[in-house]
């Protein structure tokens, strides 16, 4: 039988105050985003920090939804995994963290990793230039996917993006992303 107290203790121990695991819809994103903003506002967190945390949350939730959509067209995961992911927001010392994870096609891993490594190697000025270049480019919005989202997060985060891919089987991998925002 599931020990909910253990789960709760684990979440508390990790500083996690918002946790969701399952299928993410746009409506859910809006509701959870609202809850997150309200909590931070109640704690009188500086408005620019609230906006940063909220922005990371939206970009990551939308990534989960989009990646799963792109997985659908490539047929690597089962229909049960579409738009399914885990998202957490919490405290880590002097930082807030927003972390998310979802299944991606193993075939996509090198493409996503390359993109993230490229972004991670850039300083803030390079990120700004790259962001503007990607924003201007003529590619249709749908094909850009998370490209701009990663750059946006890297620009807003106060620490480099942390990411990891764990191979689940030859077709599927689990992608996790963590962004940190200074608590000021």
């Amino acid at each position, binding site marked *: 039988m599931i020990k909910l107290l253990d789960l709760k203790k684990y979440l508390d121990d990790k500083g996690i105050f918002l946790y969701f695991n399952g299928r993410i819809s746009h409506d859910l994103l809006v509701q959870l985003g*609202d809850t997150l903003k309200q909590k931070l506002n109640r704690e009188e967190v500086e*408005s620019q920090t609230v*906006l940063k945390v909220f922005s990371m949350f939206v970009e990551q939730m939308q990534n989960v939804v989009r990646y799963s959509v792109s997985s659908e067209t490539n047929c690597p995961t089962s229909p049960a995994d579409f738009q399914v992911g885990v998202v957490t927001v919490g405290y880590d010392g002097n930082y807030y963290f927003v972390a998310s994870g979802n299944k991606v096609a193993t075939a996509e891993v090198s493409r996503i990793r390359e993109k993230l490594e490229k972004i991670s190697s850039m300083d803030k000025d390079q990120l700004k230039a790259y962001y*503007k270049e*990607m*924003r*201007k480019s003529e590619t249709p919005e749908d094909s*850009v996917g998370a490209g*701009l*989202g990663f750059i946006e997060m890297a620009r807003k985060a106060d620490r480099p993006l942390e990411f990891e891919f764990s191979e689940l089987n030859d077709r599927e991998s689990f992608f996790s992303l963590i962004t940190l925002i200074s608590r000021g």
Partner: protein
Amino acid sequence: MKGLAIDATKSTPWIYFDQENNILEINGESYPENTSEFYEPLFKWLDMRLGELHEESFTINIALKYFNSSSSKILMNLFERLEKYSERGKNIAVNWIYDKADESCLEYGEEFKEDLTTLKFNLVEKAGG
């Protein structure tokens, strides 16, 4: 000439055309489920409206408290399109309205402005903000 009015939701802005003063207002937050789908009616309407514009001025007031990365791309597309119209002699101005307390909103406006050459793009502090 057709009007334009789109009600706000939590994740999409209020979009309204004030026919009397020729001002388009975009106000609120923007992180739609499908960004291109949401903005498509606005783009269609603008092409029609700007096509029939003569010497009169046309102003867009944008006051967005939050927009996600895909909205940022759409906004850039919008400004590039407006710039093309203004280069064809249309009298167009964009007012990027920011709250004094919100530094990042001003920075976003500055970054759009940096990437535009001929479009009149004004950074305007919100009255009483």
